[in-house]
């Protein structure tokens, strides 16, 4: 497993894909953050940024996952992997971890910047409010800090988990085809479906369907985090999606052996 993990991780940096992903993601991420907070004036809201960032994930994560199994199939290197004394589950896990490392690394890197900038910015924006409140003894410095922390750390954890689920879905799609473009477009389409599955709910007259779509929607569950609520059910949901799709990938390979 570690061998696959390391090879894949390195391959993202010996080919342009890793850099392309990082550049695009950090640029959009930073730009979006700046638009939603620093340049939004009185409309400034970190929640707005976090609600947008998942949509970007649905588009950029497939860039990382598109080649994971498609390329192995095309290059016939999967024969090496599958005839080596490593189980399919471990190969899938290795690939998942390598992609997830790149994604989470990039995201955390970007978030650290955002957090630092936001801290300074929010301080200057609300300085007089905070100072007044402090003087009145209503809040302490710790309260201010924990407010920032909650409004950032909660959604960050949620985004990291949504990312894991998306990576798993992308890997699954990639295992179905040997064409990277099909893998890329297919993954984007399916991830966007997962995001917006409940968006047209008010058009559906049938309540159980609405509830089902609401339940499936990645975005509906994510909303809680944006309001500062840490929702364990959502965490379990994201982890389950991740696990289910990795399991399906293993099944795809098992099935192909038997076909």
């Amino acid at each position, binding site marked *: 497993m*570690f*061998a*696959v993990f*390391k*090879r894949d991780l*390195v*391959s993202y940096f*010996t*080919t342009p894909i890793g850099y392309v992903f990082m550049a695009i993601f950090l640029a959009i991420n930073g730009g979006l953050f700046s638009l939603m907070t620093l340049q939004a004036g009185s409309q400034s809201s970190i929640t707005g940024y976090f609600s947008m960032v998942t949509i970007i994930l649905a588009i950029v994560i497939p860039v990382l996952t598109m080649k994971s199994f498609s390329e192995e199939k095309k*290059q*016939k*290197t*999967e*024969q*090496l*992997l*599958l*005839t*080596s*004394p*490593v*189980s399919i589950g471990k190969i899938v896990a290795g690939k998942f971890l390598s992609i997830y490392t790149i994604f989470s690394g990039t995201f955390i890197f970007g978030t650290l910047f955002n957090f630092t900038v936001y801290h300074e910015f929010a301080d200057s924006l609300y300085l007089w409010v905070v100072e007044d409140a402090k003087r009145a003894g209503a809040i302490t410095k710790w309260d201010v800090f924990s407010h920032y922390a909650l409004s950032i750390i909660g959604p960050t954890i949620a985004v990291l988990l949504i990312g894991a689920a998306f990576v798993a879905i992308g890997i699954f799609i990639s295992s179905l085809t040997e064409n990277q473009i099909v893998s890329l477009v297919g993954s984007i389409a399916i991830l966007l479906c997962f995001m917006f599955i409940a968006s047209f709910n008010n058009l559906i007259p049938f309540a159980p369907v609405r509830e089902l779509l609401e339940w499936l929607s990645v975005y509906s569950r994510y909303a809680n985090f944006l309001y500062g609520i840490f929702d364990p059910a959502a965490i379990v949901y994201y982890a389950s999606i991740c696990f289910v799709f990795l399991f399906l990938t293993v099944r795809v390979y098992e099935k192909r*052996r*038997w*076909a």
Partner: protein
Amino acid sequence: MMHYVQDLFIIKCYTVRVKICQPIMGDKLMIKIQNLTKSFGRNIVLNNVSFEIGKGEIVGFLGPNGAGKSTTMNILTGFLSFTEGKIEIDGLDMFNFPNEAKKSIGYLPETPPLYPEMTVTEYLNFVYKLKGCKFDKKKHIEEILEVVKLTDVKDRVIGHLSKGYRQRIGIGQALIGNPKVIILDEPTVGLDPRQVVEIRNLIRTLGLTHTVILSTHILQEVQAVCDRVIVINRGKIVADKRTEDLASAVEGNRRLAVKICGPEKEVTQALRSLPGVYSAECLGNLDADSYSFVIESDSAIDIRKPMFALLARNGWPLIGAEASNVNLEDVFLSLINNTSASNAKKKRGSKKRNAN
């Protein structure tokens, strides 16, 4: 000419090898396949195939395209599963202990499984880790680079190397971990003649310490390298013999290719009239003034002297003569034609029965 000399050399090596190997063979069973059947949906690719391969044997796998060679190899290496039957590698059941069984196999698939963005050393290191080997890593990989003659290019990116190098990296990859069984799917495809000879020599040396299975279209290769040949056609084993036995099975006629300057029809007739000649065919005039003929004659009679005398009498200069032995190609074709013919007969028979 150079080729011929090299082939002779190979044959010499080969006979020496057989002598060395005989006590080893049969010592221990390395691969045991029983009633192996594989079907893709309704399409039966392998039908009740059984064979055993002993330690230190070099076995050639022959068959036309789509015969099931690659499928057999893919099943042996655990890439594909099988519908029915049993596979044991070094006493380990492939179905119940796939990972343990895979450890004793090195596999070179039809297309070498290479990552073009890695360097040769990086790639071999990766395979080393993937297989979970426990040797002195640096030394082991250097040895393999030495064996497949890749030391010069060890730090170059695989994507920039030519087909011959890639094939050798593929073989190197199969050798990592010093597996007991080495399975090579068409190992000499895309190599230049000198490399072909080198790889064949390599395979032979490997055969001294490993069990080697190789599939190929090239019959000379089997003749030059293998102890034993398994011919497979339409998912069934057609023949499973020692290489010499297989060749001698069809030997009987002598074949001679000659070039003669003279009138086509008369020469053909004159050649046919020679005692012991079964057939003489004109292949056309490839040079400006001579015709090429193929003469088949009884193996007991050497027709070269009487033929020369005959031609001299008629004043037709003989400008070239080359003996071509009956080779595996003939054996192969006759075996495959036999089975197709008998299959067709069976089909016809069953149709008749149905009609009745």
